[in-house]
């Protein structure tokens, strides 16, 4: 309902802009036809007219963009609310259960594991939101150090194996040549973790994620994360890196998220003078995410 309302208001503003421009054009053309002889006035008139039309177009564009951004922000608030409250609700439910009911030993252990899972999830969301705030702050400097890129990627994979109940083969790592990278280790770790998390989350029950690292003529190092997930439509390949953006449709509601993960990846890449992008042959063919960073700064 809300979405329908927004779409309507966007359509309204575009129609208003187009309508105003055509009225002006009509008036002006009429005026020119009636007063054809005043040459210099026609010239200035055309100039002013172009200015007015430009202004209307600009105004409409900004309005539409603002409405869109508002919609995304709302979606983000909803998603974060959900991501924060759901684990708390779950932890609370299990604590109350343990407190009020007689629970046998194996059940109790199961409940503890569930609560730990939920607190990890909660912590993940909190870190993601805080990191977005930090990355958005351009004054904040990078804490640069030299790291073994391969070791960082392996660390991230080990974390993912701990977090998700997948077989060891499901998260495969192909070692490239050893690369020593000068970068902010914490940010790079967060970016790589986000890529691996996404690959696992969007794969559903059939997780097969291949990770590899390599370097391009000694200048750039990259990590490729390839999954067999649902794939990405070509039109969305760039969009998904935007802040709060989530691919519309059933997939985004099935896989919960805040719309911050890839934004963080792209921001980290930019801050290091690198690049991040996605490749996919379309829905159903899986997707590959690449994070490319300069080796020396």
């Amino acid at each position: 309902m809300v979405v329908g309302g927004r779409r309507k208001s966007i359509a309204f503003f575009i129609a208003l802009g187009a309508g105003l421009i055509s009225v002006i054009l009509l008036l002006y053309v009429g005026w020119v036809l009636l007063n054809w002889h005043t040459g210099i006035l026609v010239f200035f008139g055309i100039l002013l007219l172009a200015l007015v039309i430009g202004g209307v177009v600009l105004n409409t564009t900004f309005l539409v963009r603002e409405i869109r951004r508002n919609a995304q922000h709302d979606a983000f608030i909803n998603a974060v609310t959900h991501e924060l409250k759901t684990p708390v609700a779950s932890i609370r439910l299990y604590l109350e259960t343990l407190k009020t009911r007689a629970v046998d030993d194996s059940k109790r252990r199961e409940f503890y594991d569930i609560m730990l899972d939920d607190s990890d999830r909660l912590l993940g969301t909190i870190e993601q939101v805080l990191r977005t705030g930090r990355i958005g702050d351009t004054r904040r400097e990078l804490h640069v150090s030299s790291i073994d890129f391969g070791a960082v990627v392996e660390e991230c994979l080990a974390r993912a194996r701990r977090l998700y109940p997948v077989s060891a083969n499901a998260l495969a790592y192909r070692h490239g040549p050893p690369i020593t990278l000068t970068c902010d280790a914490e940010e790079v770790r967060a970016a790589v973790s986000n890529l691996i998390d996404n690959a696992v989350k969007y794969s559903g029950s059939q997780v097969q994620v291949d990770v590899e690292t390599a370097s391009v003529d000694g200048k750039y190092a990259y990590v490729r994360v390839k999954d067999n997930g649902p794939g990405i439509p070509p039109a969305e390949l760039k969009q998904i890196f935007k802040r709060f953006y989530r691919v519309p449709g059933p997939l985004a509601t099935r896989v919960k998220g805040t719309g911050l993960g890839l934004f963080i990846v792209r921001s980290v890449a930019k801050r290091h003078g690198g690049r991040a992008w996605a490749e996919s042959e379309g829905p159903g063919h899986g997707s590959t995410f690449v994070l490319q960073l300069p080796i020396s700064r």
Partner: protein
Amino acid sequence: MTANSSEKILIVEDEQHLADGLRFNLEAEGYQVRAVDTGEAALDLLLPASGNGAPEAAKHAFDIIVLDVMLPGKNGFEVISELRQARHFVPTIILTARGRPEDVLEGFAAGADDYLPKPFELAILIARIRGLLRRKEWLRASAPPPEPKDSFVFGDKSIHFDLLELRVREQVYPLTVMEASVLRYLVEHEGKTVSRKTMLKDVWGLHGDTDTRAIDNFIVRLRRYLEDDATRPRHLLTVRGIGYRFIAFPPE
């Protein structure tokens, strides 16, 4: 724990942990619990194909629904309003992370009976479930006893709503449930003009721009049963441009 066992609860929740925790607790309370993780699955359970199969059985399959809002596919608000549109009035508690006032209002507007934001207190949730079930029980207890004679006699004709029969002298015409409902409505408004629109609303529960000609077909059929001359009706009169009027004892 409690005596009210065998009452059935449907949990619609896509967060596995919450669904499992709720199921554990509600089963410990003595309820029968079924959990599904999409709104579509819930609707399939509650509204079997096209509603003609065995809707009555399905309507009573669950005594209460605990419904999440942020579900994959159809969200909880859509699920509840679809249920209500299909005249399915099972008590429903919405249990959701969305707790802003406008969300709560939307939930109630969609047809929820209760709204509980997450995180919730287990004891409160159980108390509210009990409250809704108790209200249902109380309604049943305080309902007026069924009328002994559920029929209407006029002249040499009589309508037996309980038996779904229309008797004209010796002739017995079986009525469909819908025909009986239409007749009952007309009889209740005997002598008054009822418009097609209000009939659609009160008898069929339909709103808005539904085609009103469906009613005309019913009237034509009913006239064939209860008018001596269906082309010159004396009981079921057409009021041009508005609707119909039922006259039990037409002047000679």
